[in-house]
């Protein structure tokens, strides 16, 4: 669905991404893991058009989109939930959601928008309770949910989630990840950029490891989870540690997650 070919981008005179090749498949979770400064957020911004691509191609369903404005990319169905949530703090929850449907405001009409609000609140019951409340007063977790809900207002085809678990408590992180799989199960393509490698690899269909602006490793999520170099660098496991048992732990955790999802 989305394909990056030799993508290069950066700020000022410095390139941050050096020739990235990456693909996001329809109805799949594609995870992007890497340390701080690896270029994950830069990649997300380049896909959504906040940052111009310096070289290379971005293909969405086979058509090159790297020269399109961010507005045009949203119209195509690519939405980006940026790091740090970026909700409009002075708006109410409902006003934030309405802003999400800005591009389709005419096509949807008042009733259509109300139906969409109802639809996304189905994912986040807590937002339904606080529709009239000021968004800036929501807790961090609720703000993250609002940011995702707002992105869903347009019924996108691809959602780019940048660090959705940042600064959230473990229970909330699990909830967010459960939601991500739920979105995938409804047919949405998800590009999930995360520092929480353990969890994102556990739910990802395919994953890429980004290091200093280059893809150093890729493969199915579970497979990467079992690789010793991943365990060492991103899962906080000492290199001399018992690889068998950490892999077993990871599997147990993934199964735990699956149980939560099944409920």
């Amino acid at each position, binding site marked *: 669905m989305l394909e990056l070919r030799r993508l290069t981008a950066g700020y000022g005179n410095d390139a941050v991404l050096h020739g990235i090749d990456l693909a996001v498949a329809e109805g799949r979770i594609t995870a992007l893991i890497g340390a701080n400064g690896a270029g994950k957020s830069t990649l997300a911004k380049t896909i959504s058009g906040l940052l111009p691509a310096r070289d290379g191609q971005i293909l969405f369903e086979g058509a090159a989109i790297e020269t399109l404005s961010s*507005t045009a990319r949203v119209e195509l169905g690519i*939405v980006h939930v940026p790091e740090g949530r*970026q*909700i*409009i*703090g*002075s*708006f109410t929850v409902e006003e934030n959601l309405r802003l999400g449907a800005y591009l389709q405001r005419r096509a949807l009409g008042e009733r259509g928008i109300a139906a969409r609000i109802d639809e996304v609140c189905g994912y986040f019951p807590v937002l339904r309770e606080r529709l009239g409340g000021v968004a*800036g007063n929501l807790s961090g977790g609720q703000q993250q949910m609002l940011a995702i809900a707002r992105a869903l207002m347009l019924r996108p085809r691809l959602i780019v989630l940048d660090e959705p678990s940042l600064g959230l408590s473990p229970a909330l992180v699990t909830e967010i990840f459960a939601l991500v799989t739920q979105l995938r199960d409804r047919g949405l393509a998800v590009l999930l950029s995360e520092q929480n490698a353990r969890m994102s690899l556990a739910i990802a269909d395919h994953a890429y490891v980004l290091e200093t602006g280059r893809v150093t490793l890729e493969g199915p999520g579970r497979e990467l989870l079992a690789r010793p170099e991943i365990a060492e660098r991103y899962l906080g496991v000492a290199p001399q540690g018992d690889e068998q048992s950490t892999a077993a732990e990871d599997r147990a955790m993934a199964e735990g997650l699956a149980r939560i999802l099944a409920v």
Partner: protein
Amino acid sequence: MEQFAQIIIGGLLQGSVFAVIALGLSLVFRVTGIINLAQGGFCILGALTLYTLEADYGWPVPLAVLAAVAITTLVGLGLGAASFVPSLQRLPNSSMLMLTAGLMTAIEGLALVVWGSQPYAVPPFSGERPIVLLGLRLPSQGLWIAGAAVLIILSVWYALARTAVGKALLACAENPMAARLMGVDVRRLTLVSFGLTALIGALGGIAVAPIMSFQFDTGRFFTNAGFIAVAIGGMSSLGGAVAGGLFLGVAEQLAAAYVSSLFATAVSLALLLVTLVWRPSGLFAPSRQRRQDVREELRVHRAIVRFKGRGALVGGLVVLALLAVLPAIVDGGTMSSLVIALILFIAVLGLDVLMGYTGQVNLGQSGFMAIGGYTAAILATGYGLPPLLGLVAGIGISLACALVLSMVTLRLRGAYLALATLTFGLLVDSLTVGLGDLTGGPSGLVGIPAFSVAGFAFDTPQSLYYLVLGLALVLVLGLMGGMRSGFGRALQAIRTDQMAAAALGINVVRYKMAAFGICAALGSIAGSLYAFDFHFLAPEMVGTARSFEMIAMLIIGGEGTLVGGLIGALLITLLPTIFQPLAAYKIMAEGLLLVLVFQFMPDGLLGTGMRALSRLPAGGPRPGRLTEQTR
């Protein structure tokens, strides 16, 4: 009772004008977070264009009104597309404020070139005969003004509160990135709102044109009144802007009727200062409660350009030597301009400490010049005190005022700080006019002696030049040392991130007050020297226009460089002297220069020059190493 009602009607009329301008300001503020000081310029452009079309080309009123509004809106869109919108994403808010001040100056200059400096008056739209209603006389133009105000207010309110595009505009203001990610075309909407304010400004200016006489620089009055109204009412509330405008109009008319017309402005300014202390967010602003951990300003300040090493020393000595031999070369007229430039440079130095290093906006530096100037002049002429004593007394009073003012402003930031300092300048301005017995009123104070120390009078331009040059040198060297010390680093920390500075244990309050004190003292010294230089002092010599001029000098030369201000002061003071025939273009050039420097070389002439030199290959002239931490 009837008289009282008549005064109230007059106040509401005047107030509706303020309300319309305040609406324009409030609209741009809500959408961009910037106070657009050029707003009054659109009023004046609209009114003057209307005059030309109506009086010179004989167009019928309705057609002339439409054309004047259209032309002004186009000018607004042009300025917005060329400067305001592209700069918005690159410059911090305080610089944007100055950029709009530059736009304002450029519009004034344009008006001066096109229409000259004489006052104009447009005939009322529907005759001179007032309408009598319930025994009260109502000028018919009043209905046009009220009608225009209601129309604008209702349409703006509807657009923002009830339409999706309006909501998108508000989202752009608060979080442009989030708005873009939702598919909102931020640049286009910002431009649209800027064009809208030009349209609103033009409509307001045109509606009031028949009840007042106006000239190229009346726009400043409009901007100031609108700015004050919007602050009294609440910056980001449209209803507040309207209420603030009406309130201000009535207050001014009542003050003029029952106190003195000379103090009408002073009363409204005092009112504003009280508002800022008591309820900084405005009297009529209904505010939604929200968490405060959201960073208000997203854009970062630029790093300060620093020069080090032998090259800087050599360069400085060369410039100093050049300045020392200048009096031997130049003619008399240029000589007196040089003296003025150096005197203003001292006030600009103070501004640089406060604005360049500490990041605090000060639109009222001329107020301190006025205090210093008038204190020294009154003490010297009325009481025969020696000039040096007058100068010192001026510093004392300025520092006292700075102390009081900083108590008001310490809690304020950004646009509110700009407003409070502007208010201070305007207040001093209106007091110098109002206290005629003491200051000689609008016609000025004459017979001020030359500056003298211990019997030696600096009564020739040359002697005064060397005195001021010496003083400036001592100040620059002293401040350079100061800015490299822990004190200077603390100021720069506050400039970059006040919260982080406080978290590091920097006593933000004390450092800000110290910077403000330095700024006030230097402004005061410059004001005193200015009075002694001219032997004469009138309010407009140290009026608010001077504040903006000094800011232009600072920006053009380079903020945070100390010496950069000298380039700006010399350029702005000397250019009209050197190119006499171009004097009419001075104001426009000043404004355009300010805008262009902001857009294309935010480090100023000096900063940009030094950066360019430091990039030269080794072997070329190296004025010093630049340290830079921009990201």
